[in-house]
């Protein structure tokens, strides 16, 4: 995926999109499985409606289930990859930058010295794929929690230890 910024500037900017680190590829797979699981009830409902309308011959067969199936396939195949590539992070010596969002872009930077506490969470799907979510909690009202999903689990734990060590060192 090419991420050249819309306008190139003369000085090299630390916020350059090219320097963002991608998440673990399993994040896209996990998203796909999640979308599939979420689509199943909707498909079942569409099939039920289809069966009902076929009995009463109101609409031509396939008018309900067809589009629903197409939309579900589009969501399952196309969207997870786009969501995966829309996310990125950048960890440096004293701060973490998290970028997320397809349409509405959010680019958050949290300095380590402002982190109140850190969580590493894994849902069942995440455990299956070996990824975890790192959540930083700050004291501000906005961005009270900043979540970074889709990290390889050992990496997430390592990042947590880094941040914790940074905080511990600062308060000595």
């Amino acid at each position, binding site marked *: 995926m090419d991420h050249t910024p819309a306008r190139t500037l003369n000085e090299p900017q630390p916020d350059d999109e090219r320097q963002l680190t991608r998440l673990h590829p399993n994040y896209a797979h996990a998203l796909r499985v999640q979308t599939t699981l979420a689509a199943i009830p909707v498909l079942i409902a569409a099939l039920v409606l289809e069966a009902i309308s076929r009995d009463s011959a109101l609409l031509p067969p396939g008018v309900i289930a067809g589009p629903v199936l197409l939309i579900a396939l589009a969501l399952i195949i196309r969207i997870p990859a786009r969501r995966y590539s829309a996310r990125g992070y950048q960890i440096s010596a004293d701060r973490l930058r998290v970028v997320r969002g397809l349409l509405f872009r959010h680019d*958050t930077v949290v300095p380590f010295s402002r982190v109140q506490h850190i969580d590493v969470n894994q849902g069942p799907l995440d455990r299956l794929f070996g990824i975890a979510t790192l959540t930083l909690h700050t004291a501000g009202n*906005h961005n009270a929690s900043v979540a970074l999903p889709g990290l390889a689990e050992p990496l997430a734990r390592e990042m947590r230890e880094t941040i914790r060590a940074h905080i511990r060192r600062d308060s000595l």
Partner: protein
Amino acid sequence: MSEPGGTPLRTAPVSVVLGAIASIRSAIIPAIAIAFSGIGGSGRLLVAAGVGLAAAGIGTAISYTGWRRLTYTIGATDIRVESGVLSRSARSVPYERIQDVSLEAKLLPRLFGLVAVTFETGAGGGEDLALQYLTIAEGERLRQLVRERRDEEQATAASPSSSPAAAQAAAARSRAEADVGEVLFAMPPARLMIFGLFEFSLAVFAVLGGLLQYVDNVSDIDVWNVDLWRGWLEEQGSVIASLGPYAQAAGAVIGLIGLVIIGTATGVVRTLLRDWGFTLTRSARGFRRQRGLLTRTDVVMPAHRVQGIVIGTGLVRYRFGWHGLSFVSLAQDAESESHVVAPFAQLKEIAPIVSAAGFHLPGETTRWQRASTRHRTDKTIIEAGLFVLATIPVAVFAPPGLFLIPLGLAVLVVGTNLYAWEFRRHALDDRQIFATSGLLSPTSRIATRLKLHSVEIAQSPLARLRGYATVHLGLAGGSFAIHGVPLDEARAVRASVLETIAATDFSRLDQARDQVQVQAFSDAQSGFSSNFLAT
């Protein structure tokens, strides 16, 4: 009663009486309803009296049980409050976590000489420890005791090797200094009247509407019957129609004047009740605010807990130069997030309060950056476009000529947005960040960059196309967002905020302002390069 040791103490017995009065008050309405409604036939007065007495009796019993089960213990290092009839809860707060003790007295407790004591812990979220009700003398004694204990703890912590007597002497000295304060801001009754004039409020009609519902219950009038209202309006309308056009106009004008008078009177009365005797004092302990006529509140906020400042104003009062100052902090005020510190003041009165809190107002040397003109254009087009879209169905369906109304509103929106661009600015100086926003009158926010917790640059799809963004700053206890900032400027703001944060040690933030020191940059840490691959 005066033992500092661990004996549990009870709140004042008179609070049982207050609980009984409250339950009687809530028993009166059903009793009246029954008396007027016809349940029970000819003996319904007796039934009503019986119901009222039963409700009052049950309420008093519950209040008495609650009183017996509420105890507080002044321990050596903390205060414990145990309460609860069915489910017990015991809460303890150590002295050094108590910011201060605030005393609040509503009208009825004040008549009985009681006061409600709240231990402010700065935790926010309304989780402060509260005791209802103690006698005024006991409340003052408790406040004094907590302050003594806290100052002793601080003195011992500051110099652990000194003897207990020396610690107590140091604590007494610091307490004597801490209680002396200068009055930063006070509102005499004349100021309150002017304030009330600006607080136009038609809330009395809402109250009347609420009362109408009770009227429905206890009398024969059916409030929800539309024909009733229509008949009444037609009756009045026919009376008015029989007068001449001049009388009609005069009637309309008089009606409007009556409305204005009612609204102004309501505003004045509400302001007098809420802000009577408003006094803001600054002592070494912090900012102390007292206000209220029927409900008297007395709150203290330590200066270093102030995270930011909001200076707001209104459409009309801005033209006369009146502003309102609030502090943003983690502790919550009674009604709102920010503590109102000077609700109605001129800027020259606000300036000393702001500098007492450790901030400074923007001046001539502040380099203001304006919002993006593209943002202004987009916002104007979208908001005016809504009204223009509304013109189409109005032109098609409504009587001719009425389509000019939405069109006129669209023009008004365009003018307002162009004017409001004047107020959309932000600036950075050596320690602070300023931002103003607002439609017809500016709201200014000031925050110390040091006390920010995160910075986010957010862009909607339109903003991404046009090259501007919203900067969200993480402020503890409030919000701080700057809209319509050009993207380069947003990144520059973020970089400078992070630079300020990275230069200071976080653990020193909570200490008193004069003890904050600026640390050197922390050492770069080996480990992750900025491009660590995720696999």
